[in-house]
């Protein structure tokens, strides 16, 4: 993140343009909160409200119970957490093997990993649905966890990181001392990979939280929804009250926004390092 300090100082015009852009980025979110604090009659009047009203708690409560947002939030934390943990663990192991170990078919397998990054998820959706229908997994959380538990991008990302961050001599030295592979992974690879694991974990968590296409096929609003499934139900007329819909959108976004406020610096850094590697 340090990078080269750019020479030029931004003038007031630069600051103003950026401030305008930042305001445009934040405004729809702020207005979600404003709309969530009003009622549906007020939202059907012109001009639209520009400041908060007094209905926020009422709307949040209705969204939480009637629109199943409580269950949805709990499910999403569980799903996104499991997917992030699984992706980080399996990507680190495979990334280490691809970066530092020699084995047969290595290059072919690596090519397969890179090739799968290009394949659109739609291509597998029909058989995936037939599979989970066969297993009676519709509306079960494993139907959305298992297909996303590993990621080709994650493997590639960890490989690129470990290629340069983990000295081969360190691995060899531990081997000479007679350490087993699992001890090497635990005491040498994981400590060296920790920064990249954190980045991958955060990015995967955000992606899993916002995953849309597959969950709305596999899960239903009334059964066992994730946040995105519940919000889709809201948007398609499950509850006609606009202010409650906005309260639902707020509930579904707030946890990630809080994470951004707390970890913002690291997430920004993660996306930027990922970009240079990619």
């Amino acid at each position, binding site marked *: 993140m340090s990078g080269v300090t*750019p020479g030029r100082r931004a003038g007031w015009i630069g600051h103003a343009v950026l401030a305008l852009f930042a305001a445009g980025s934040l405004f729809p979110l702020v207005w979600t909160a404003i709309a969530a604090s009003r009622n549906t009659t007020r939202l059907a009047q012109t001009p639209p409200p520009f400041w908060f009203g007094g209905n926020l708690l009422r709307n949040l409560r209705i969204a939480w119970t009637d629109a199943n947002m409580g269950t949805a939030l709990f499910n999403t934390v569980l799903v996104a957490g499991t997917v992030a943990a699984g992706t980080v663990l399996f990507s680190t192991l495979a990334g280490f093997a691809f970066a530092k170990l020699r084995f047969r078919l290595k290059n072919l397998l690596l090519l397969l990993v890179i090739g799968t990054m290009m394949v659109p998820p739609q291509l597998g959706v029909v058989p995936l649905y037939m599979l989970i229908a066969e297993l009676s997994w519709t509306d079960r959380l494993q139907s959305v966890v298992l297909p996303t538990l590993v990621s080709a991008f994650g493997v590639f990302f960890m490989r690129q990181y470990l290629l340069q961050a983990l000295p081969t001599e360190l691995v060899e030295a531990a081997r000479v001392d007679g350490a087993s592979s699992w001890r090497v992974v635990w005491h040498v690879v994981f400590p060296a990979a920790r920064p990249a694991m954190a980045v991958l974990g955060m990015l995967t968590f955000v992606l899993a939280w916002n995953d849309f296409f597959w969950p709305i096929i596999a899960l239903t609003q009334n059964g066992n929804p994730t946040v995105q499934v519940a919000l889709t139900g809201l*948007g398609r007329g499950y509850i006609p009250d606009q202010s409650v819909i906005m309260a639902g959108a707020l509930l*579904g976004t707030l946890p990630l926004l809080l994470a951004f406020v707390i970890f913002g610096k690291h997430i920004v850094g993660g996306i930027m390092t990922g970009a*240079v590697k990619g």
Partner: protein
Amino acid sequence: MAGDTTTVAPSRWEGAPVPEPAEGGRKPRRSRLHRWDLRWSPYAFVAPFFLFFGVFGLFPLLYTGWASLHRVELTAPDEMEWVGLRNFSRLLGDEFFWNALTNTVTIGLLSTVPQLLIALGVAHLLNQRLRGSMFFRVAVLTPYATSVAAATLVFVLLFGRDHGMINWALGLAGLDAVDWQNGAWTSQLAVSTIVVWRWTGYNALIYLAAMQSIPHELYESAALDGASPHQQFLHVTIPSLRPTILFTCVVSTIGATQLFGEPLLFNGGAGATGGADHQFQTLGLYLYEQGWVNLHLGRASAIAWAMFLILLIIGAVNWLVARRLRRSS
């Protein structure tokens, strides 16, 4: 750190004969285990990935091809009736397929081009010395944290015909209210706006990262040659960014071909048609409508393969463009 205490000189442990200490029976057994471990552990490390990928990635991928040659209904996925290429030939004569394809292309252009251009400008500004630069970086990234669903729900209200904020602002400027959802161009513009809003900041940060890795000397020598800041941007920054720009083009194009959530929810409760006249139905949405509204899984599979084919064509074009660019420079 674990490695700090191990200061053994590097040795070729792979394939090198391990000296066998001849003390008792325990050591040789351990070293045999050790060699076994050396040999097989790489496979153990990559196994989880390929196991999950095989079951939930590769198998569905190939099976989609098989399913696309059959008549399969969602209500009875077990009963498959062989129809050969009929699902594909049907697509060629299907006006809704061509409509969805055209919409995907126009919405793709309307969202990708402004998104990347604005991102380039924002990144350029972020690359200067700023007050509160971290605030700006986090702020432009917040739309990325907002889900498709949450973003579309609020934009549906902002684009509302009767009481939406955008029409209200147009009214202030003396313009007529626009029926965003029902017009062809207006609805596509609105859907593209959601995409642009969500992804511009993310792309700006990727450009910023690439800009920060441009060697400073390039700018210094350009400045010595009398290049203005504007010329430096055009002749130093943009050429150095070429691989990154190509990368973001590829990623955004892939995203644009798969566009689904925004057009689905922009239609409110009216289903997966993408508007009354299918005016903003994308390929992804049409796939969903065929499979999960009309219950024709075989046809949905054929659409999935058509989407993949289009991606491959786009990929090939991208590759050709990249090769030409590399040659010309």
